[in-house]
């Protein structure tokens, strides 16, 4: 059996990041990717938070094919007949170095794969890894298309479904309680139109999230990100929420309904749909992170459950890149010791624990349960818009004092036992 230092299953962000780190240090690394090219199978929202990972590969980001830096944040709370949009224009966000950028994965991942190859790493596309090779509980390599390739360490970065790793018993099979479905359209629009609609200077970008009234009360919401000459418009909806819904909804119709809403229609007006895509999202949080290493292997990115759905921000790409980085460091050090046992590779988990990856997941420990509450997706967005509507209403007859309008709305929708209980639950997040 042919043997290399490291095999990486999956040429997504986690896998490519690991490969880049290893190839930069001269290790022999092969990435195996099933798509025609890296990114061909990958879907994100998406915005990549660069600030947490900037220093890991400082040289990489300068020439990266980002779409737009996100300089403006929009959140729309959707109610029936009224909605409230909060627009955050922060000078800090609009000043380099930018904290986050929108990306399209087919472009971004292909570019990343090119960087790996420039460093001497091998990225083999159009090949599916069919199995992990195990010997007495140790992963010793992979099987692909009838060929076996051995490796000192196999980094498993096969994405959210974790088919090979769960088959090999290295993690649990994915459960609907811990996953959401995300899907979107790419809608082409001229750059000038995008800039006008989201109040942007040339080249700047926006992230726009929609809560309430989008997923028929099911856990989820809508997202919109501006790319160079298109927008990514999509829906995230909890799998268990769909399964438990008393009135079953065909998932794909939610996006069509969303686009027909009077709040959304003018935003997509005149655009041309050019692609439709879907992907699962891991949102079990830290409680669902499996054992990250063992004899001869490491799990990285979504396969390791390293993603976070915090209502207005989904993060997974920065975690994927960081976990790839730390996986590479662990393999480089293990190679120096010439010891690829679990004990030697345990360094990987330690470095993730002292980095933002597991720290941020730990901070967010209680988010997954808190956001299961359907009232977050129905009652509150509606209540905010009701209140704002009252504040701005001048009806016939004398108006009430502003303070009593506000207090009336607050008392009705926010000062009750249910809300206090929910606030209490939220203190943990």
């Amino acid at each position: 059996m042919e043997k290399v230092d490291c095999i990486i299953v999956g040429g997504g962000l986690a896998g490519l990041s690991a490969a880049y780190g290893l190839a930069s240090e001269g290790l022999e690394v092969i990435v195996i990717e099933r798509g025609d090219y890296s990114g061909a199978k990958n879907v994100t929202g998406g915005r990549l938070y660069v600030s947490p990972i900037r220093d890991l590969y400082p040289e990489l980001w300068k020439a990266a094919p980002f779409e737009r830096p996100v300089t403006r944040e929009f959140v729309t709370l959707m109610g029936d007949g009224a909605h409230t949009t909060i627009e955050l224009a922060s000078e800090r966000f609009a000043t380099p170095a930018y904290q986050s950028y929108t990306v399209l994965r087919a472009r971004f991942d292909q570019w990343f794969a090119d960087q790996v190859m420039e460093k001497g790493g091998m990225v083999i596309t159009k090949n599916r890894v069919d199995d992990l090779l195990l010997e007495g509980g140790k992963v010793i390599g992979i099987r692909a298309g009838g060929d076996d390739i051995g490796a000192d360490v196999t980094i498993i970065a096969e994405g959210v479904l974790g088919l090979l790793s769960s088959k090999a018993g290295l993690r649990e099979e994915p459960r609907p309680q811990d996953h959401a479905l995300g899907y979107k359209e790419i809608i082409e629009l001229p750059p000038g139109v995008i800039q006008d609609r989201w109040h942007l200077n040339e080249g700047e970008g926006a992230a726009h999230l929609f809560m309430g009234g989008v997923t028929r009360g099911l856990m989820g919401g809508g997202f919109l990100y501006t790319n160079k000459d298109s927008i990514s418009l999509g829906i995230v909806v909890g799998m268990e929420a769909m399964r438990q819904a008393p009135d079953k909804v065909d998932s794909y119709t939610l996006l069509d309904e969303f686009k027909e809403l009077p709040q959304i229609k003018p935003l997509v007006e005149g655009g041309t749909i050019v692609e439709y895509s879907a992907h699962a999202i891991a949102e079990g949080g830290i409680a669902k992170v499996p054992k990250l290493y063992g004899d001869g292997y490491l799990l990285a990115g979504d396969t390791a459950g390293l993603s976070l759905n915090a209502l207005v921000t989904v993060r997974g790409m920065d975690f994927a890149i960081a976990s790839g980085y730390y996986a590479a460091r662990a393999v480089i050090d293990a190679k120096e010791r010439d010891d690829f046992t679990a004990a030697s590779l345990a360094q990987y988990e330690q470095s993730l624990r002292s980095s933002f990856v597991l720290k941020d997941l730990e901070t967010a420990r209680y988010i997954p349960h808190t956001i299961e509450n359907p009232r977050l997706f129905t009652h509150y967005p509606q209540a905010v818009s009701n209140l704002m509507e009252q504040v701005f209403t001048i009806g016939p007859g004398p108006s009430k004092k502003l303070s009593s309008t506000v207090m009336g709305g607050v008392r009705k929708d926010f000062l009750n036992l249910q809300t206090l209980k929910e606030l209490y639950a939220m203190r943990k997040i």
Partner: protein
Amino acid sequence: MNIEAKLGLDVFKIDKERHITIDVETCNRVCVNKACLYVCPANLYEIDDQGNNTVNYEGCLECGTCLISCDHRALEWHYPRGEYGVQYRMG
């Protein structure tokens, strides 16, 4: 735009070997929820004239939602072989 037309925008390289196989007997015998019929973002599951569950695997977006949501492990689901299946141009 209807869902078939949306799928028509995507690039698919279709394998003659199917990557999703349904254990129809299980669907018929034990499944009440039939989640696959409504969770699929490509609307590929359908009950045929004989009352059996079918999936048009050729339009699959490979999201795995049907696999994760099936109550009864009635799906044999793996990724298409390398070179086949959906190939996103944007992603």
